[in-house]
Structure formats: structure tokens, C-alpha cells
């Protein structure tokens, strides 16, 4: 059965989490808290680069619009979904893991990755 996303707050920042698939939603408002208003928009803008990949379309949990596929420039590229209206980003569970290993995908992504590592310590790769 489908379940609504639950919110998990850690160190003052929240992430929306799906208990069934382990995917997360990074909300625009939360990114604003983490990075600051202008930086969050820069980050979201840089993360909005499209990618031509076949994967099931996801819908934005805020506006229910179809989200775009996007990927980071690192190798291997991390595929994720982003809302075309800038409401936020969706990472599947394995995508999240990969994203946390990489950084410099976009300005500010280091801070995002650091915070995600904090939130999901057990997923953190030990280097």
C-alpha cells in the first residue's frame, strides 16, 4: 500500500522520507535553510540539467507535476529527479548513496552531501 512521505528532522533540517523505498525528497525550503536563499536557488538551478534516460517518471510531491530526470557530471553519474518548478529534488535510495559519495556536482552540493551523511550515517561510505 502507498504511504505518504514522513518528515525526518535532524540538526534543524528536514528531509521527507519514504518508508517503503527509502527514497528522499529534498525540499526547496529546506535547501534554503541549509544553504541560504540565493545559494539554494543556484544549487537547484545547477541541479536542473536534463538527462535523456529511460526511467519511470516521478511526480513532484508538492505540485504533482511530472519531474525531470537529471544527472550529476561525476562518474558514475548520479541520476535523480527534479521538479521543473523548483520545488525540490528526489533521490532514490541507491542514488542518494552515490550522491553522498560524490561532491561538487553543483555549487553547494558539498554542504548538502555533508548534511546527508550526518542524517544517514549508516549509509555513509567509509573511506
Amino acid at each position, binding site marked *: *500500500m502507498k*504511504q*505518504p*512521505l*514522513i*518528515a*525526518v*528532522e*535532524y*540538526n*534543524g*533540517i*528536514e528531509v521527507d*522520507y519514504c*518508508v517503503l523505498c*527509502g527514497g528522499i525528497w529534498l525540499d526547496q*525550503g529546506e535547501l534554503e*535553510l541549509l544553504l541560504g536563499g540565493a545559494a539554494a536557488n543556484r544549487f537547484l538551478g545547477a541541479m536542473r540539467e536534463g538527462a535523456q534516460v529511460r526511467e519511470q517518471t516521478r511526480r513532484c510531491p508538492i505540485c504533482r507535476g511530472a519531474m525531470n530526470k537529471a544527472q550529476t557530471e561525476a562518474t558514475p553519474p548520479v541520476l535523480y529527479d527534479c521538479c521543473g518548478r523548483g520545488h525540490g529534488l528526489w533521490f532514490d535510495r541507491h542514488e542518494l548513496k552515490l550522491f553522498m559519495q560524490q561532491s561538487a556536482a553543483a555549487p553547494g552540493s558539498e554542504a548538502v552531501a555533508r548534511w546527508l551523511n550526518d*542524517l*544517514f*550515517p*549508516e549509509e555513509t561510505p567509509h573511506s
Partner: protein
Amino acid sequence: MWELIRANKRRSVALLLLMLALMLSLGFVIGAALFPVSFNLNYGDPYGRHAYPAMDWLSVLPGGLLGMAVASVIWAVQAMVAYFRGGAILLSLSGAKPIEKADHPRLFNVVEEMTIASSLGKMPRVYVMDDMAMNAFAAGRDPDTACVAVTAGLLARLNRDELQGVVAHEISHIVNRDVLFMTMISIMAGTVVMLSEVVLRMFRHGLHGGNARYRGGKKGGGGAQVIVLVIALVFALLAPLLAQLIYFAVSRKREYLADAGAAVYTRFPGGLAGALEKIGADTHQLVVSKATAPMYIVNPLQGARAFHGFFATHPPLEERIQILRSLAGGVSYAKYQTAYNQVHGKGQLIPQSGLAVAAAPLRAADPGNAAQAGASHNQFREAGDLARNLNGFRFLSCACGARIKLPPAFAMQAVQCPRCHAGVALSAARENAPVTQPSATPRTPPRRRKPASSSAHAPLMAQRNAGAWQSVQCACGAVKNVAPSFEMSQTVCAQCGREIHFM
């Protein structure tokens, strides 16, 4: 400022009469179009030698009168509803929910403060809309039934001075009795808009509903009926516009006046100016209906952009901010009037009794603002959690430090903490050893249906982790949310009336 109050009462009556006239004419044309009666005045004259072609207009009368009768009944009901239930309707339309002091002490504190500053007889009830956009409005018919509603987004982003400015602006609407007029007009204009939409749909249906050739030999009503149809159409198109126009014509000035009131009550015009700047820069949009949009401190439909046109319900934001910022060396209605004339141009804004009041010195900015700016995370979280509480979320805390917030639609029984994978349960209030259980059970069952008495059940004990929203499950199964600022040692389950004591 008694002139304003009197003028608003007078305007409310005038509005009612205008609406009556509008409704009556609308009723007449709709009725006439719907129930045409043909008078056969040529009865008994098969050759039509004494035809009365001019009497054709009579055919519209019975239907028209019926329409007028129906319209006046609708008007009466509408007026009563708008007067007695208007505030409640507007609040529920906006999705605002009442909060208690413990839910958001800062907001309550500010409203109390501004109630005293404005010497309003009674503190308005406080409502919060669970929207992250920034806006606020006041509703009600007089200070006794008034309420102030703000969005969670406003609580998340404004510092204390700015919040105070917004609340003072809304309270000043209440003091000036703008709320009466605005509530009435929102409801009444809203109904007219709705009615004419129905009529328009009917016409579209009738006009494009098939070809006259296949409609059968129904005789057309002649010239008079066509004219009636045209008039009805014009009315249906005009009514909402007319209703909006009345609103526009009167609402811009009262926004300036409410700004002036806010400056006087807070003695810190910078607060409201800062709030307006933040609201103007906000990119979130509040979803509201056309009829209620002009009630808000900044019109949500006309956006943050300065909206200068004839249809603007609010003065341009920059102008409001500029006037507030140019108040220096004390605040009074007279000083606001001067600033208004400098920025806006000529025009008498403040009534005589307001101009006579002496200027009060400006106060300094709240020293807590700087600290608050550093804690913007907390403030944002606080407002978000408040909105979640209004929507019936449950709050769990995991030992690892993560807080989990479950939406009401979340149906699973157990949750695993996404961070440490430990199972987290709702903190349940457990039954303690009966402390002072009444020894003798009463012979007759209690008559009250609502078991509000605490003696009915033994009190329950629960662990309290202060500093955040917490949900406690009562033995009856109901969930009680406790606000971070809740400092008392006990509360009561809203469903079964049982006392819950905190350890």
C-alpha cells in the same frame, strides 16, 4: 478615529442596499428570461384585426416579479449569513485554524500587546493558516467577534518587530471596523460572482445547445424576450465586475489607514515596512479565491509586483514601504498624513479626530531581532511544526536525535528511524497505580455525554521531552499533541477527558 467607524457602518448599510438593487434587477431579468408568459390579448379575434403588438413586453412581468421575489429572499439570507457567520465562513474558506497560546506564544504575545496598544476592548481570536506563503488578514463584524489570521510562512520568516507590524495592521482594520465592511462585501460579492457564473453557464448552454431547426416548433418570444435575454447577459457579465469595483474603490485608502494605525500602535514603522519588504520578495503564492483576495495584508492574486492599475485593491507595496520608512522623529496620524502627501501626492487620508492626537516618540528596534536572525532555522522549524500540528501530524523522537513527523494519512503501525534504524513508537501515556480512585462508584451513571470529568478515569503518566512538539497517545487511543512551550505538568485528553500527567 470615530469618523472611520461611523463611515464603515454607513458604508456597510449602503453596500447592503446596493446589493439589494443589484440582486433585484438581476432577479428580474433572470426570472423574465426563464418564465416567459404569453398573454393572448387577441383572444376571440381570429382575424387579428385588433392585434396588440405593443403589449408583448407584458410577458416579461410575471417571471420578472417572481425573479425579484426570489432575489430578495436570497439577498436577505445572504445578508444575515454575511453579518452573523461571515467571519467564520471566511476563516474556513482560507483554511485558518484557531491556535492556543502554548502553540505559538510569540504570536499570542504580540496580539495581546497590540490589543492593549490599540485599546481594543477584547483580544481577537488568533488563527493560523498552514501555508508557507506570507500573508495575513482580519475578519469578524466587531471587536467582540474579530479574529486575526496569519500564515505559518509569516511566522517562519518575520522577526518580532515585523510580526508586530503585521498584527498591528490587522488590529487597526478591526479598530476602524474595516472588518465589518470587508467581511460583508467578501461574502456578498462572492455570492454575486457565483450566481452570475451560473447564469453565464446557463446561457452558454442555451445558445449552443443544438440547432434551432431541430429544437422543435417552440415559438420564439419576440422582440421583448430577445431584449431581456441581452439584458440578462449583460447583467451576468457586469455583476461580478460591479461587485469588484465597489471593493476596489474603497479598499486602497483603508490599507494606508491600517498602515498608519500600525505605525502608531507599534511606534516602530520599520517593523511593518520590513514585513512588507519580506512579503513582497516572497516567491510562494497563497491560493485564494477572487472574492477573498482583497482581505489580505498584501493581495495574493495581484502578486508581489507593485500593481498600480485601477483594479488594484491595495496601494503599491513600494509606496506603502516608502511612506512608513519616511516617518521620522516620532509617530502620529498627522505625521503619517504628511509622509503620505510627500510620497503619494495630495489627498486627505486621516480624519480630523486622528490628526489631533499628539505624536509619540519612536521606539528602538527589538534587541532580540539580531538573536532571532541567528536562530532563523529554529523559527522556520517552529512554524513548520505548528502547521503540521494543525494538520494532525504525530511527532516522534528517536534516541539518536532524529525527530520523525508522521502525516495523519500515514497508516503503518511501527516506524523505523531512517537514521539509526531503531524502531520508534509513539510515547504512550501509561496507567499508573491508581492514586486517588473514588472508592464508591456512583449508583447512577453520569448524565453528561462528554466525559469531561477527570474523576471518571485515573490519570495517566507520560514522559515529556521538552523543547519540541510531542505526541502522546492516551489509553483511549486518541493522540494529544503538546507544544514545545507547554510548561504545565498535566494536560487533558481531548477525546476522553482523562488527565495526562508529565514526569
